[in-house]
């Protein structure tokens, strides 16, 4: 291993007693080499996970991750930290269940406490039609090896007695629960993968923006960057939110639009909400961080943007959902809002695929669900990069599914990205 050595409780004690002099850099800041076997564009969660698994699981070497800003500065650094595998469709559920299984062993695997916490997630039910839909989804989850339970109203009340059970416009009728769902300390995911990749020899190059992708005779040869040209045999793009901008370097138009999703955190509060819950009658989902902040979010603003900030209508809509579901939060204060740019794809599902250019691979279109996918996305993208074949759980995430009518449309909204 390079650098830091293993982390452990004993080491923390030892360093505390010796002035913390032994902690080395979590990762190096190498100068880019002239050429690599693999270049991953994008040092967010998915890019770092890809590099980590390429090195660790697929035994590849000469790998670089190019990041225009700082590591973990994309959506892995601004999300609501939820993990779950509660999807309906065959193209999705096996993949997300694979991801959840990777989360379950992740910290021991990359030797970094990312605080993976399977606190349970409930999707609240307010109508009979919703109960039918969630029953169906729960069955699909179980058929794919995931866990799912249908809770009745009283079971929900026992868990969260402070929800609105008295004067609700949309009374709570039950919930779909996935006990293995939960939350993860989002930044630590990026850092854990970064440190794990760096220690296996991956060059993580920050402040290095890709300004062009060079090809010769239909094959990729490398990338132009703000730090010069870097050659590569294979280039993987993992820049969700900015996918269209990067793929425009090779003239590719993508089946997606960029939208802003705002998220929110309250001031720190003593423990209130143990798990994750989503409101079925408004756009509102919430969990409480270990630090005490209520972390919550809602719908995208709904218009194309790259501005990483939103406007008041969605802020108010989310607060309205929160107040109608949890009337006690009226006196909790919203501390900070933020906005991340989402690749909103045409069917609400992602793409992990080769492109028409040999050696150029694409990973994106995660809509606002990319965080929970991070481990599987990295693993499957590494699989595709190393073997040129899709991983068995990601065979449906192809570019040509739109042409073939094989869309993976969980919401049934069709090709209107802002409705997914």
């Amino acid at each position, binding site marked *: 291993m390079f650098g830091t050595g293993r982390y*452990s409780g004993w080491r923390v004690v030892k360093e505390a007693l010796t002035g913390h002099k032994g*902690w080395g850099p979590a990762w190096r800041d190498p100068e880019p080499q002239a050429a690599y076997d693999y270049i991953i564009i994008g040092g967010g969660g998915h890019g770092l996970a890809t590099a980590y698994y390429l090195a660790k699981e697929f035994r590849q070497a000469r790998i670089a991750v190019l990041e225009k800003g700082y590591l973990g500065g994309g959506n892995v650094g601004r999300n609501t930290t939820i993990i779950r595998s509660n999807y309906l469709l065959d193209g999705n559920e096996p993949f997300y269940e694979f991801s959840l299984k990777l989360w379950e062993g992740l910290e021991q695997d990359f030797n*970094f406490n990312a605080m993976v916490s399977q606190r349970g997630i409930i999707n609240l039910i*307010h109508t009979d039609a919703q109960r039918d839909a969630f029953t169906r989804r729960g069955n699909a989850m179980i058929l794919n090896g995931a866990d799912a339970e249908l809770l009745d109203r009283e079971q929900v009340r026992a868990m969260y007695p402070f929800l609105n059970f008295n004067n609700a416009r949309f009374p709570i009728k039950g919930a779909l629960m996935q006990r293995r769902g939960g939350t993860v300390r989002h930044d630590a995911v990026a850092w854990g993968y970064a440190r794990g990749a760096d220690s296996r020899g991956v060059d993580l190059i920050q402040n290095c923006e890709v300004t062009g992708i060079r090809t010769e005779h239909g094959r990729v040869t490398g990338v132009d960057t703000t730090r010069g040209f870097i050659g590569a045999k294979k280039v993987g793009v993992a820049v969700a939110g900015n996918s269209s901008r990067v793929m425009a370097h090779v003239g590719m138009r993508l089946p997606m639009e960029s939208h802003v999703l705002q998220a929110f955190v*309250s001031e720190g509060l003593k423990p209130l909400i143990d798990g994750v819950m989503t409101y079925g009658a408004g756009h509102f989902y919430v969990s409480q961080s270990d630090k005490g902040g209520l972390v919550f979010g809602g719908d995208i603003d709904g218009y194309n943007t790259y501005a990483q*900030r939103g406007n008041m209508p969605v802020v108010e809509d989310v607060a*309205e959902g929160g*107040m109608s579901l949890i009337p006690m939060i*009226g006196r909790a204060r919203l501390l900070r809002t933020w906005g991340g740019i989402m690749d909103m794809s045409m069917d609400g599902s992602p793409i992990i695929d080769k492109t028409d250019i040999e050696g150029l691979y694409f990973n994106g279109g995660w809509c606002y669900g990319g965080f929970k996918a991070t481990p599987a996305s990295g693993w499957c993208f590494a699989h595709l990069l190393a073997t040129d074949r899709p991983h068995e759980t990601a065979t449906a995430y192809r570019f040509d599914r739109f042409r073939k009518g094989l869309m993976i449309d969980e919401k049934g909204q069709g090709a209107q990205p802002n409705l997914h």
Partner: protein
Amino acid sequence: MTQSNRIPGGQIDRSRSLSFTFDGVTYQGHPGDTLASALLANGQRLMGRSFKYHRPRGPISAGSEEPNALVELRGGARREPNTRATVVELFDGLSAESQNRWPSLKFDAMAVNDRLSNFFTAGFYYKTFMWPKAFWEKLYEPIIRRAAGLGSLSREEDPDQYDKGFLHCDLLIIGAGPAGLMAALTAGRAGARVILADEDFRMGGRLNAETHEVGGLTGADWAAQAVAELRSMANVRMMPRTTIIGAMDHGIYAAVERVSDHLPVPLPGKPRQILWRIYSRRAILAGGATERPIAFENNDRPGILLAGSLRAYANRWGVAVGRRVAVFTNNDDGLRTASDLKAKGMEVRVIDARKGEEVVDTAGRLGLSSVTIRSGGRTETFACEALAVSGGWNPNVNIASHHRGRPVWNDTIAAFVPGQGDIPGLEAAGAAAGRFSTRAALETGAAAAEGALADLGRSAPARDLPTAEDGPYAITPKWYVGGGKGRAWIDQQNDVTLKDVKLAHQENYTSVEHLKRYTTLGMATDQGKTGNVLGLAVMASLTGKSIPQTGTTVYRPPYTPVAMGTLAGRSRGQEFKPKRLTPSHKWASEQGAVFVEVGQWLRAQWLPRAGETQWRESVDREVLATRKSVGICDVTTLGKIDIQGTDAGAFLDKVYANTFSTLAVGKCRYGDAARGWHRL
């Protein structure tokens, strides 16, 4: 209890006394006090505990930037956790409790963390608690969660009402200090529709906290006169107790007006707070500046305040935090605290960093009792109850950076100022623009208003500026005092110290965003208003990069935290997505219909008759009745398109997959229609 630390002067109404309790003890204060000023007047410096180490803390500020003096205000269902005592307007019968301590504020068992601080360094939790795997969720995390968090919610429904409203103006002025007042006078006299908003309950900004004169009057009197003139103008809306929380697109600003927070409970029919959306054609940011501390060992004890705040307590509230005061400053503004306090009869000692003098340590378990200074190689310890610290002032660039434009470093004042044009239509003035003297504030306020009037096609009145001080600021940056072995705080609430920043640097979390996220610097309820620039300056000194190269983290709304109830307004309970009822709803209800929710609509599902035991019986009866005679279905809940004309049927043949032109008059038919992505 007596107001032992009350001194003459200030803008409080001594003719009336207000009674309040803190941790069950009753105290007296006066109208015009904040909870913090009243407690300080009663000699109570200790008001809270820090987040991680549970260090005893008092207020370091006199405003909304306060990281330490957080209390649970009010009781029962109205309990408000994490409320800054420095902005709570005192009212008779106010009750507050300290928070995040057990069993009491003076003796907090969790302060054991302070002894273990060597283990609880930045990010220590990322390196441990991984074995055995199951222990994280079963043991470690529950312990951490219980220890974390600050105050508690009541777990009861918020009993107060909130409202929302919309305002339109030519010019929104954010902040009613000298710059904001002068801008409002200029634009108001020109006839423009002006909104002047200030988070304080008393307009005037720093003029209320200073002793120098404006136009031959005391600053506070000049401000009161300006406020009176503005109140007399029909085209000016004065909004005290109103915080502009965010700059949105196209001149829209979000604001929170605290209508009733200075009352025990809202008056009947009145909301607690109002969320305003202000549509402005132009805006002026005159939100002032926030003082920053200097990091030195044990710089977090109750009694150690920012110099301008200590001065504000003396001048505005007639409060001496202590009779023996030390002033540690790197700029001339800190010297003002020394001269003002001396004039009020206090014993003052100045430690001027520009002369190589520095504070190296302090003592006093629950409040400052002495400081140790180093000057010319000699150290000396002396007793004092208050220490004023000024590391300089940071213009409040937050609102101007809400569109993610980054502020610009200004070497002369060693601080960031708003970037030009980052928010279209917004101009900064006064201290918010880095112009710190009163004269400069008045001038830039007038100039910003004149610029706005020109943009709006109005002519400005002749400039009429009152005389005012134009003193020097003369800062020499001094961020931290090195060389010691103890801890020097940067972010007081989150207990981020110099050592944590050094460790982050050692571990290569050197990007300012990594620094923030790894150490939690600036992530507390004050969002780093006092600590952020200090923290990044320390990181810059470690990496050898300049401060502007190091850069800031992103300034995000809201400017100060906002109650969720305010953002929700009246959309709660039954008023959340109000019910939509069909024309037949009343009739169907009378028939005992069972309704189903379809979106916001209620639709009658079936109409049970006596003797029917389950829904199928009712539905079967209705189906048969319709087959044999006639049925009525109220499809108000569905969208409709009215198509008229002789070729309507032929047109529908092109829209639907099945044929409609053959449909007879008076009949209906379901049709299959497809969007481009559908396959039939």
